[in-house]
């Protein structure tokens, strides 16, 4: 694949480092901000892979909308205090999870390295995409022709999610007078 090794190495190292920080930091707010940097590094790699629309969506939706939602909830719940949950979890569980992750990683890397990838000239090679007006135009035309049914179903899914999120997070009028566990400001 035509891909600049320098930029790929930089973005990959950045993503791995900040992903580790996300998992290992005690403070959820630091985890959230490291995750934003992971998303930016992923957007860089998407741009290197000629997926320009996906790179833009990655920044707009992930680094923008989803992470604002996360940070908003962290601040709302005042949950940005260090939680020492990592040291509290069972040692056996931690060792078993690490071993499971390493085994899965090893088998995935082995199979990726030893499989012969199908490098066929599909309908959308780089030259054909360029001739048809670029990545964004090709994806947009596909989205509104071949993938129109999933696209419309996506709008139904989003509507359901909006209604569901409001219904779940809404403060219900309490019939019993006192709140749950008697907590009342």
């Amino acid at each position, binding site marked *: 694949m035509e891909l600049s090794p320098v930029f790929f190495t930089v973005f990959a190292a950045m993503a791995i480092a900040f992903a580790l920080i996300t998992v290992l930091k005690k403070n*959820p707010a630091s985890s959230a901000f490291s995750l934003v940097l992971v998303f930016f590094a992923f957007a860089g790699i998407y741009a290197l*892979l000629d997926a320009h629309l996906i790179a833009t969506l990655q920044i707009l939706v992930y680094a923008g909308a989803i992470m604002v939602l*996360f940070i908003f*909830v962290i601040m709302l719940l005042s*949950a940005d205090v260090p939680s020492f949950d990592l040291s509290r979890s069972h040692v056996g*569980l931690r060792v078993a999870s690490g071993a499971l992750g390493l085994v899965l990683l090893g088998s995935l890397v082995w199979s990726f390295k030893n499989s012969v990838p199908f490098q066929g000239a599909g309908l959308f090679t*780089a030259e054909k995409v360029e001739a048809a007006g670029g990545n964004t135009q090709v994806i947009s035309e596909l989205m509104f022709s071949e993938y129109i049914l999933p696209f419309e179903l996506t709008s139904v899914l989003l509507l359901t999610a909006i209604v569901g999120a409001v219904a*779940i*997070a809404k403060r219900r009028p309490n019939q019993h007078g006192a709140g749950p566990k008697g907590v009342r400001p």
Partner: protein
Amino acid sequence: MISTVEPWLVLSFSAVIFCIGLVGVLIRRNILVVLMCIELMLNAVNLTFVTFSKLQGDMGGQMSVFFIITVAAAESAVGLGLVIALFRTLRTVDTDEIRLLKE
């Protein structure tokens, strides 16, 4: 000078991120961090889709990524709504404290 990166290196990089997210889901007890690790895993799968889409000259992979991003946005909205409802009931974001069905 344009040189190349082997495809298996990009795929292995996404496998690394996926495993970091998986281990994070297993060892963390803070439900917000668990949700963030799920986002990490979704991103790793997205990168695999885009890489194969580039390898095979097929736009189907990038269309899948578009739909996955939408589903991830809906998932985190509902998930964070659940976290807020949970916090209102239990005053905690710790998954060890969630044992309402055991009492």
